[in-house]
């Protein structure tokens, strides 16, 4: 499913944080009861949300270095594409992605029910 389709299905959005409170080329962690989600902001102010666990050995991706639209895991340097959650280059694996949008400087995450679907 594409990001947009996911987002449409999500229907209701949860307000998370102001865009300016995520550092450029940096991240924030969203803690939920079930899962930690890493929220990234790129140099061009795009925002992505993916599960904060590397497909390799669950490294905390939120703590990695962000470049372009990917992040390098702090544990063993896998490169993960922020849009798809997939490992880049010769590595193989994938982590969950979540719908996000930015409106009026505020970041929203698609609701949890939709994400479970």
């Amino acid at each position, binding site marked *: 499913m594409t990001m947009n389709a996911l987002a449409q299905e999500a229907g209701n959005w*949860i307000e998370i944080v102001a865009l300016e409170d995520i550092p450029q080329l*940096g991240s924030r962690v969203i803690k939920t009861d079930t899962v930690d989600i890493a*929220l990234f902001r790129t140099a061009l102010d795009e925002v992505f949300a993916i599960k904060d666990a590397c497909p390799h050995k669950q490294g905390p991706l939120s703590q990695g*270095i962000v*470049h372009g639209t990917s992040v390098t895991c702090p544990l063993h340097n896998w490169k993960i594409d922020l849009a798809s959650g997939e490992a880049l280059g*010769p590595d193989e694996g994938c982590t969950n992605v979540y719908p996000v949008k930015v409106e009026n400087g505020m970041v929203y995450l698609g609701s*949890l029910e939709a994400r479970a679907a």
Partner: protein
Amino acid sequence: MRENLVLVGNGMAGVRTLEELFKHGDDLYNITVIGSEPHPNYNRMMLSPVLASEKTVSDIILNSREWYEEHGIELITGDGVTEISRVNKSVITASGRKFPYDRLLLATGSNPFIIPVPGADKEGVIGFRDIHDVETMLAATRQYKNAVVIGGGLLGLEAANGLMKQGMNVTVVHLLDTLMERQLDKPAAAMLKTSLEQKGLKFLMEAQTAELIGEQRVTGVKFADGSEVDADLVVMAVGIRPNIELLQQAGIYCERGVVVNDTMQTYDPSIYAVGECVQHRKQCYGLVAPLFEQARVAANHLAQVGSTRYEGSVTSTKLKVTGIDLFSAGNFNEEEGDEAMVLQDPASGTYKKLVIRDNKIKGAVLFGDTMDGTWYFQLMREGTNIADFRRTIMFGQHDLGDAGHGDAQVLALPDSAEICGCNGVCKGEIVNAISKQGLFTLEDVRAHTKASSSCGSCTGLVEALLASTVGEGYDEAPSKKPMCGCTEHSHDDVIRAIKQQKLKTMPDVREFMEWKTPDGCAACRPALNYYLLANWPEEYQDDAQSRFINERAHGNIQKDGTYSVVPRMFGGLCTANDLRAIADVSDKYKVPEMKVTGGQRIDLFGVQKEDLPAVWKDLSDAGFVSGHAYGKAMRTVKTCAGKTWCRFGTQNSTGLGVKLEELTWGSWMPHKFKLAVSGCPRNCAEATIKDFGVVCVDSGYELHVGGNGGIKVRVTDLLCKVETEQQVLEYCGAFIQKYREEAHYLERTAPWVERVGLSTIKECILDDEEARKALYDRFKLSQKYAQIDPWKARAEGEAAHEFTPLKIAG
């Protein structure tokens, strides 16, 4: 509209160029590849093991037909190009097909030279160049008994060895009295001959072939002196000739090979050439390492990046005959004015010779023990001054990972043996990845298997596996190693540009140096951040997002995601109040474990990230600053009891330790940096395995540099002796600053000192007072900005987002 790129010659250099080109993008050209052989690109060097039945043809395919498809390449096999029409910009094949090009890449390799003696055209007389030749030889081994190999060079000996393994009776005929005279001196050649004879090969030296006799098929070889030997198969391995007939016909300027400039262009600028067919600066090459360097440059220009030049290569060779270790590089026969160092042990069958001039290695020949070949070769290419370790150089670098493993031992290990302890990668996985995915470089192996990508101690072992699996084609250290995939420039280039061009921000560096990525990667960003910080301490704003997580969070992330906190204890001294404050923090935040570290301070383990600012606030209120136990930074000054208490003490080692730590704490370094002060030569503080160590003696202080503990222990070199504490501080600051300004990011002092040579460092710090004082002043200046406690700042709210998670229910 994409332009057409046509590659003529589906071999190692040509296809490597395409692979390099794809690194710049997959859709730059419509690509057609035309090869006369019926196979996709394979590893020609591995024909020798195929002939010896150590590998099969399918093992040595480098690019499968699917690879060509995936990259949208039109592949023509078994149909050679017979004409290049430069007027119509097209090529025509033997079967009459015509392909237009906008740019043409020629990589036609070379042909074996067949000596023009009578009978050379008989059946059973062949060269050793391609799969077809190997198949012909293998067929002959099943039917016939006697083989003669003409030529006692690298290729001839590998052919002879393979044929012998197939059960043939093999005689090697050589025109001169020394085997492999282009690679070996006489003693090494004699040892080689003896061990090959022990394996069963026969040699006819100084024998000049006059005629090949027989009817339709060859039956024997006749020599100039009239003698004869029987032969049902004759392999000519006397040399190769660049394959340029086609190019000459097209009127492209050729001498011995097709002449190219530093950007791999022929005299016709839309025609490029790489590989053995090429002549560059009067030089033709017959080994893959230089061809791969050419490929990188050609690809760069085809992709219109255009920032690199090929400047020629220095080559080395190894012989791929199982059980014989042989290495050779450079000028190995000494001339007037050269010095030769020789280490020979007939009992173990080893011979090592280095030819030295003005303290630089000019050439090397190793037989029996080739473990240090790569090291000598590197010293030779980089022109390292070896004066400082001349006395031990013959004994090698002892650099092959876990002590005791050597090339030979790695090869003998079972597939299940763990090579990379950090990432748990076994030998089998590495060998598999190398052969299945066609890997040639250490970087490739790191990317695909993760072996050697962490602490790097197994690098030597992985290199040995690469060398044995792909043969000598693997790129050892390319002569100029790019910093990372984002750039063609080396660390040295970048450091120089930052200084000379006064580049003061990361975007400036990336723009000036034509970075390929908009914001770098996890390898170059921390390095650039460091270089800018070290060069422009007053102006540069540190970039937290370019630091590894430990440095960003100012604590060591532990495997369960918690952090450890190590407050600084200057010189390892502490008071009851200090300990009480630490104890209080430990109680208040329920720290699960505490430990006294080897750096003489206390580590609090298991602190939650959210609690870090509060923990730091309490420590900071009690007077502590960060111990930087997490950073590429100055770590600790370890001290011994010293004169105050110890009956052997000669100076106040603790007091000096405190002063050194007060001078140096907080400074960022290329890598971690440790100091120690021992009160007497008994050296209880282990000062001689530190980056900077002081050993007190009655008359003053000995200063030692460039040591480290760790996986490969390196004992320090003595820098000098000084008389006062003030001098210790000044020399220490100057040494640190030189390291900070010149070392590559992530290079510790030990390899740095070895790379630049202790004498260079001495010249600057000992002999040149002005330079020393200037370095010391620059260090103190940068310390003005560095000695701001990061913990206190964060306890007061800096970078709060880093430590506060966002919470939502669900």
